[in-house]
């Protein structure tokens, strides 16, 4: 049962960490629009190609 003395504080730390990340996400507007971000993965194809072709231009 001694493991509890390590596992439980570890859990506490993890939760504190999670709350910290959550706080950051809320502050940065990650939860402002939950409707459309789910669609983004479906829509991103074209611009990526565009970027790829642009990049070499910028470097040369």
């Amino acid at each position, binding site marked *: *049962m001694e493991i*509890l*003395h390590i596992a*439980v504080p570890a*859990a*506490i730390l993890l*939760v504190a960490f*999670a*709350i910290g990340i*959550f*706080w950051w996400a*809320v*502050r940065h*507007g990650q*939860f*402002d*629009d*939950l*409707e*459309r971000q*789910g*669609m*983004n993965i*479906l*829509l991103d*194809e*074209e*611009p990526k190609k*565009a970027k790829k072709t642009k990049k070499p231009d910028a470097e040369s």
Partner: protein
Amino acid sequence: MQSITRPQTQESQCFHCHQPIPRGLNLTVTIQDSEQPMCCYGCQSVAQTIIDQGLFHYYKFREVDADGIPQALVPDQLQALNEQVKAYDDPDIQREFVRTSNDSSTAEVTLAVEGMTCAACAWLIERQLNATQGVEHVVVNASTDRVHVKWDANQCQLSDILAAIHAVGYRALPFQQADLEQSFEKKRRSYILRLGVAGLASMQTMMVAFGLYYDDIDDMHRLYFWWVSLLFTAPVIVYSCQPFFANAIRALRARTVNMDVPVSLAMALAFVASFYATIFDTGEIYYECVSMFAFLLLSGRYLELLAKHRAIANAANLMKLIPAIAEREEDGQWHKVMVKYLQAGDSIRVKPGEPLPVDGRLQTATAWCDESLLTGESRPVAKRAGDQLYAGSVNQHSPITLTVTGTHQDTLLSSIVSLQDTAMEQKPRFARFADVVGRYFVFATLLIAAVTFTSWMFLDPADAFWITLSVLVATCPCALALAAPTAMSGAINRLNRGGILIKNATILEGLGRIKTLCVDKTGTLTQGRFSIIDAWYHPDQDSDHLKQIAHSIENYSEHPLARPFQQLAEQAVQLSEVDNLPGQGLSATYADTEFRIGSLAYIRQWHPELTSPLPKANVLLCDRNGLLAAFQVDDELRPDALAMINWFKQRRIHVVMLTGDDQRRAQLLASELGIEDVRAGLKPADKLNAVKALQQDGPVMMVGDGINDAPVLAQADASLTFASGTELAQAGSDGVILNGRLNALQKVFDVGALTKRVIRQNFIWALGYNAVVLPMAVTGHVGPLWAMLGMSASSLIVVTNSLRLMRKS
């Protein structure tokens, strides 16, 4: 590459907007190697822009409403808008809504976008703006229909950004941000955080509580677990539960009770008792109850807040900031100035199609003014030099100049606005069932808890505390509190997808009580513009040829009835000797034949015995030999007007037509629709009085779209207007029909009835559950944990029941 399969269009439908394609028009855009038909040049240019930018994904992912029509984008006026937006570059105007950085190199603005319906639209706008020169950062929010843009002020102008959005078929304009909204935004974020903290904490305390259920746990570990639970629960009490405590204290200070009072009492008692137990290592702990309870309550509140926030944001989006610009004469030249700088005595010029910014006296010899928004009169009014013109009416033809007589508070328009303001204050509200029941219920709960505690103190003091706690938790009114708001937000969501925006959700509950429906005529029952309703062509003649001649002659006319003819044919023929006789008609010669087009009286000058084959024809075409064609030109009825009126009659709702138009025309239309109660020739104040009188017999619903309807819309118990209606009308009404169809009214009633039913069910469930569990809790048969789980299950059932409303019918 995939081919575009969704949405499937029929041959005769515009690929972009799904409107029918006018006959004889052949416009196409090549989309992924196949020619797609377009209904107008507007759609063609929008579709072309979308394809040119490589954004054809839009057509794949856009959402289509129940009737297969994308709910957007008939880009009629977008072209005109592009010129208008130039005015937004004026620094004076920008000060109101643009935030600039200190060195004024970058600027930021939030715009409201019309016509955005799904994630595909948001994506399209974001891509389009990212490709615009000078734009640094774009965020499109699909749930509030807003675009936030940050741009380099040296590289581009605000008008470029607006024009870029218009180019893909949306209308974006700055809007009047409601003060309420900002505080809502803050509140919403804080609620998410509180919810997150409570959620994580309750998971942890439940886990620990699980360990405590084992009987063979030794005392040292038990106490260790108690302290861990305390550590997790403390932030919940201190941070997450704040809104409940604050609300409860506010209610108690005002010497009343609300739902937060028993909730706060239960949580505070449970926490203090557990805290005491932990410090002195005695008694029981209830940490897991406290944090779970807080989490569930907060999620209910959060859902309610979201629905409210959305409604407020949508309402704010409708309040567009349109810079009022006028052209004023200064030293013989025309200069653009803001309307607020205009003074009485100035000379201003108004282009055709533009609304008059102020009241004034006409300088030009003649003018046609559409005053339908102010008066309801459907036909444009002829004005002569020296006549009074009113702000808000629309100049129909050729530029006019006028002398300003009244600005701001002195215009006819602003007197209507103040009428609306007073009506708004007097508007009767539907009593909310939840508020009434809730108050009694909370009182009863507190009373029962107190009685329980005292009784058990006499019977068995050791058990008194936890039993009282069970009573408080088990009878927690949160299922009751969730019953109405969740149903409303479900209904709002459903209507929103159906193209109806509800600003004031309380009307949904009260629709079943409506006794009278008042409808405006021009623009509500009718389309608000003239079109050729019926036509007759001489059987021996080629009708296309006759159309072409009518079209060509009417091109020379500025009369409002000539308008629809200007779209009758594609190409005009070469005419000679065109003569325009105002008030009668036109004559012209084509291929050595004399033609006349105009009123019956004018035609009879040639053919005195003539009678029209169309009884209602008001425009006729003839040559020397006889009548060639007859046309009935009128303000066309909306296609679903008759079905709508009949639907209401079946439900025994009294239908009244309130119009500013003259008695004869109103009567004609009313008999066609079967409306018996017609009140014509009304001024805005008369309309208001009529509605007030009708309200004596029961709640009244109003549907209208004009400025003259605005006060009535505010006064009626429930009111709807059209998105194409005036902003003033939108400001005063409870809902806006975005898809421009009258059958939306039936939808609102249906959903309203459904909402009411769901709310009833929710109440019956919540009260029934409490009735069963209360005796058990009072007699000490339910522990706090079970009470909490039962309460949560009850709330969950209520929410799930409400979510049924969101499903498509």
